[in-house]
């Protein structure tokens, strides 16, 4: 924070930090250039700084593979439906909890806090999901993530700090809790709702655990699940060979290069919202750590 004249320490420190920054960004850049390079040319190696022979073949191969398209569709489904419902229910629940006169306020506050410290663990949860018919059901991506105690707490803190006068005047005008919620609370909490939307959106996009745990049918996997399988096995070579057949037995893509393109497609949405992400996540992390 304090201004000092540049000295040896500052120069060395600056260089070290620059190296660190490079280590954070370069891996992503590297994957990007390999994915955009002609796959057969990429096999020669030596691709470090820029694309040598530009080509969209890898991306074409992905968009021609129905399994992958299907997986991305399921990911989009859970990001959109899962996040919207999560936001709605979180806002409703937090709103009810901030009303001091609400009869179940104390009970519900404990009701949501206890699961923060105790949980049944993986297998009992699985048994419950199985009993509910959620195994091999896309709703398993949405229903178990409809609410999160941490997000309710963030919203509750925000709502508690809203000036009471706004709601009071609406109540005097005869507004019900329902219209209070929709006309006053929701519009006023857009900034904090945006924060929660980013949290849950990124969670839904990145989560591979649900698909892996609850889906035995690979048709119901998300992009992360397919990607994980491709990374851990040689699945990508199947896509490469499918696309080979399409091209009349002339190899156009390789397993490695398709993998790189999938990594890019799965990373890009996160990078696109990154400017917002970093701002709101930092804020949210602070909130969380202050509240404990």
């Amino acid at each position, binding site marked *: 924070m304090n201004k000092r004249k540049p000295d040896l320490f500052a120069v060395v420190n600056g260089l070290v930090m620059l190296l660190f920054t490079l280590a*954070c960004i370069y891996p992503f850049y590297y994957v990007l250039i390999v994915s955009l390079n002609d796959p057969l040319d990429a096999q020669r190696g030596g691709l470090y700084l820029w694309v040598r022979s530009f080509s969209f073949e890898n991306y074409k191969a992905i968009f021609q593979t129905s399994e992958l398209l299907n997986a991305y569709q399921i990911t989009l489904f859970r990001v959109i439906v899962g996040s919207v419902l999560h936001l709605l229910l979180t806002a409703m629940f937090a709103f009810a909890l901030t009303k001091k006169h609400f009869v179940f306020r104390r009970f519900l506050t404990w009701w949501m806090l206890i699961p923060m410290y105790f949980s049944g663990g993986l297998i009992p949860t699985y048994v419950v999901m199985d009993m509910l018919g959620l195994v091999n059901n896309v709703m398993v991506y949405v229903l178990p993530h409809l609410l999160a105690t941490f997000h309710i707490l963030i919203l509750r803190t925000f709502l508690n700090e809203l000036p009471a006068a706004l709601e009071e005047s609406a109540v005097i005008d005869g507004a019900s809790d329902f219209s209070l919620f929709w006309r006053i609370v929701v519009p006023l909490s857009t900034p904090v709702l945006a924060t929660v939307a980013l949290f849950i959106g990124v969670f839904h996009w990145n989560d591979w655990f649900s698909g892996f745990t609850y889906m035995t049918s690979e048709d119901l996997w998300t992009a992360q699940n397919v990607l994980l399988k491709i990374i851990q096995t040689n699945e990508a070579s199947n896509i490469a060979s499918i696309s080979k057949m399409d091209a009349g037995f002339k190899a156009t893509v390789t397993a490695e290069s398709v993998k790189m393109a999938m990594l890019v497609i799965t990373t890009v949405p*996160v990078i696109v919202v990154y400017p917002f992400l970093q701002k709101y996540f930092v804020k949210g992390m602070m909130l969380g750590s202050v509240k404990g």
Partner: protein
Amino acid sequence: MNKLYRQKWLIAFALPGFLFFLVFSYFPMYGIVISFQDFDVFKGVFRSDFVGFDNFKTLFDMPDFNNALRNTILISALKLILLFPATVVFALLINEISTGWFRKFVQTTSYLPYFVSWVIAAGIWYKLLSIDGGVVNDLLVSLGILKEPFHFMADKDAFYPIILFTEAWKNMGFSAIIFIASLSAIDVQQYEAAKMDGANRFRQIWHISLPGIKNTIVLMFILNASNLLRAGQDQMWTMSNVTVQQQAEILDTLVLRYLKDMGLMGYSIGTAMGIFQAFIGLVLFIVCNYLAKAAKSDSIL
């Protein structure tokens, strides 16, 4: 009744939340009983035979479990001992950057990897460390450090260093945020005064910066220490492969394997493992918090 009727909207708003926690949090908590049962799927949670602590006894005799427990503690401890101080140092170094935009730039890029999933991180590092055309091997060979490409991901001894490195790569920037924030709360006048007294940069860090964030360091250390039995499920599952499975198996992944591979046979034992892990976690949390109080720092309870 009239009061309830007047609060009908509040009740309606809270009802989905009530049901949500009931079904997805409290039902599974009840499911814990299967760790005391010889769980039979046809009899279900309610009618399976109770066997007392038999499952727990079996657990401690299992080589798999003991290996996973050892790995879990080893990996967590390594992360705590090596990466936690590294994160504090990183925060201190960022704090020493005097050019505003450059500090912001370093900080912002440092937590980019935090936001991608471990699936992506694993995919990227598998590629970077691969033997045919991986950048790391190419670089090390061309610098003459290695004679021929080294198969990083298939080497038992290289696995833990890789785990530590990728963990630092992915999470260090984000974990540093909290320290950087508390560093920025230190009064600039303290540094001015120290400079007047002729304190050099290292003395300033040692006598002003570090004491200034001591409470935060203690608090974060406790939070991290109480997660000793959580060694990073996502990372272990995505970064490991058959060659290093013996090293990569931690409690979380073992439970997952019991669920996926052993089928119904593994339910009772797997649940017992989960309970063991949660119980020790709770004990650790309480002990650590007590220690923190003893050290007269802020308490989190």
